[in-house]
Structure formats: structure tokens, C-alpha cells
């Protein structure tokens, strides 16, 4: 380890950290917004449910590097455009979250839904005010996995030149220099832990009825 290098490069490392933070958070938020309607559709699709969830899960098996390289051709963006990375990571997070949302919705007991209907909730309001909030604990669990794995996948985007902590890995490999690599790994784990805590906190705030258990 070379502390002088870390101090000299602190500014660059800070910028990379912020890029990594943005590239990890934005796709997960985007995919959460998309996963709620899609998960609801899968949840309501009866015997087709395993098929839709399987199809969504299939996207997770696309190698991330291939997706990073392929997307500029599909989206007509420049290869260095960070949008490619955002779209690719949104697809990965979506693949995980659609199943999470569908599973979360199925944890809500039918009696609760009947009670809500009997109290005069219309379907849309019932979904937003009863079904979705009750699914929050299950969705939070899935979201934690999605965020943490996202932090790891973002670093692969360094191979196509998008600036984030992964750039420290490629730099370290070229220079045969261990300090940037170890710094990058440690910061990735720190970022993942922070985001994990943030998701847990958000889930805690959004499900006040669960607090007595904790």
C-alpha cells in the first residue's frame, strides 16, 4: 500500500466515488419505478406468472460486458456515454426486482385485500395504499440485494471507459500497482454497505407497523 498515492489522488478518487454512487443508485431507482407495474402484471397473470418471472430473470444472465458494448448500437448513443451503463444496470436491477415485487405482492393476505375492498377502496387506491405498503418489507429485502450487486457490476463498466471506482482497477492493472486496486475494492464495499443501510432505513420508515419487531 502506498499512502502517498492515495493522498495525491484523493480528488480523483472522490470524483470516481461520486460517479460510482450515481451509477449505482439511479438505475435501481429507475428499475424500481418500472418493476412495480411489471411485478403487478406478473403477479396478476395467473398461470403465466412463472413464465413472466422466468423471462425477467433471464435478462440477468446476459454478460454485463456484452450488454455495455451492445447497447450503443441499439440505442444509437456514443460508446462512452454513461447512459449505456445506466440502461444496462437498469435491466439487471429490473430482472431481480420484478420477481421481488411479484413475491412481495403475494405475501399480502387475501383477507386484508377483501377487508380493504369492503371498506370501499377502489382497485387503484387499494393497490397504492394497502397492497404496496404491505409488500414493502419483502421489496426492501430484494432491493438490498439489487443495490449491493449493482455496486459490484458498475465497476465492470470501467472496461468500456466510464469513470467510476472500476477505473482504479484498470489503472492498477496497467501499472501493475496494487494500491489503486485495493482502494477501489475497499471503497466499493464501503459504498455497498452505506447503500444497504440506506435501503434498510427507508424500508424501516415506510413500514411503521413492523417496528415493534426490531
Amino acid at each position, binding site marked *: 500500500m502506498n499512502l502517498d498515492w492515495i493522498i495525491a489522488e484523493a480528488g480523483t478518487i472522490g470524483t470516481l466515488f461520486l460517479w460510482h454512487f450515481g451509477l449505482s443508485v439511479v438505475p435501481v431507482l429507475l428499475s424500481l419505478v418500472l418493476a412495480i407495474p411489471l411485478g403487478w402484471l406478473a403477479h396478476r397473470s395467473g398461470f403465466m406468472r412463472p413464465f413472466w418471472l422466468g423471462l425477467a*430473470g433471464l435478462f*440477468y*444472465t446476459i*454478460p*454485463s*460486458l*456484452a450488454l455495455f458494448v451492445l447497447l450503443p448500437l441499439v440505442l444509437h448513443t456514443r460508446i462512452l456515454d454513461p447512459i449505456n451503463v445506466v440502461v444496462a444496470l437498469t435491466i439487471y436491477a429490473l430482472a431481480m426486482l420484478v420477481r421481488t415485487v411479484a413475491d412481495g405482492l403475494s405475501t399480502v393476505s387475501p383477507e386484508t385485500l377483501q377487508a380493504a375492498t369492503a371498506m370501499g377502496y377502489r382497485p387503484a387506491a387499494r393497490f397504492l395504499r394497502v397492497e404496496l405498503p404491505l409488500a414493502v418489507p419483502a421489496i426492501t429485502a430484494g432491493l*438490498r*440485494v439489487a443495490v*449491493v*450487486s449493482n*455496486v*459490484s457490476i458498475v*465497476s*465492470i463498466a*470501467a*472496461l468500456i471507459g466510464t469513470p467510476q*471506482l*472500476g477505473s*482504479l*482497477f*484498470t489503472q*492498477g*492493472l496497467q501499472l*501493475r500497482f*496494487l494500491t489503486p*486496486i*485495493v482502494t*477501489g*475494492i475497499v471503497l*466499493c*464495499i464501503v459504498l*455497498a*454497505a452505506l447503500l*444497504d443501510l440506506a435501503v434498510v432505513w427507508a424500508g424501516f420508515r415506510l413500514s411503521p407497523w413492523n417496528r415493534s419487531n426490531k
Partner: protein
Amino acid sequence: MRFFGYLFDPEKWGGPEGILALCGQHLGYTLVTLMIAGAIGFPFGVYVGHTGRGVTLVAGLANALRALPSLGLLVLLVILCGPLFTSDLAFAVPSLIVLVLLAVPPIMTTTYAGIAAVDPAAVDAARGMAIGRSASSFMSKFPARCRSSFPACGMQRCRSYPRRR
């Protein structure tokens, strides 16, 4: 048409760097990884699920390993292992270590979850039939948990990186 031209070009398929050889290599990495990771993760999962000991440790470890950036670890190991091997092993060994590290947590957690989810009544029944503790694990719990452990293996992503020399 360049797409199909590439696909129908026999030269692209054969040879040591052809598509078929690369497919075989990819499958080889996946199988070796799965076997090593299974040999490590499976007994740990069975132990934790059966005894209920170390649940927090396993869950925490699995989460921490998930956050480990695979590319960073790969690069680190390539630099560290590079001088130790002279042949292609200098790249193969680091790749395998990283892949195994990535595959162990899901195998371990799902094995644990599957065993922990077995109906206690079935275990009691096995005890009642005088099946010993370790035997009960294998005869009653193992078949019951197969279904929940194997999808985890299927979920393993095959990550591919370009080979750098």
C-alpha cells in the same frame, strides 16, 4: 448482413480461438466453478441449516461477498498470482478463485434456507422412526430441500471478461 456473414463463416467456429472452443471453455469454467463452490458452500449450508448456528455470520458473509467487485478482485489476483505461474494458469487460477468466491454465497444461503424451511414435523417423524441425527439430515431434509437449492445454481451468472495478455 454482416451479422449472418459472421455466423455462417466456418472459420469463426472452428480452431483454438473459434466460437465452439470458447463455448467449451466457458462451460468448463462454469462447471469447475460450480463443483468447487458446491463442495465448499453445500456442507456449510447444511451445517448452518441443521444446527441453526452461525446464521448471522453466513448471511453477513454472503452480503459482503456480493458487494465485492469481481473485476477488482480479478485484477488484484492476476497481479498477485501472475509471477507464480508461467503458463495460461496465471489467468485461469485467478478467474476460478473469483468465480468460486462469487458462487459460494448463493449456494450456501439457499442450502441453509432450504434446510431451515423443512417442516419440523417431518423431522420429528424421522426421529420417531429412529433415524439418527445425521441420517435424518440426509434422508428427510435433503430431498425436501433439493428444489430450493438447485435454482440457486441455475442463477449463477457466467461472467465473461476479455482475456488480456
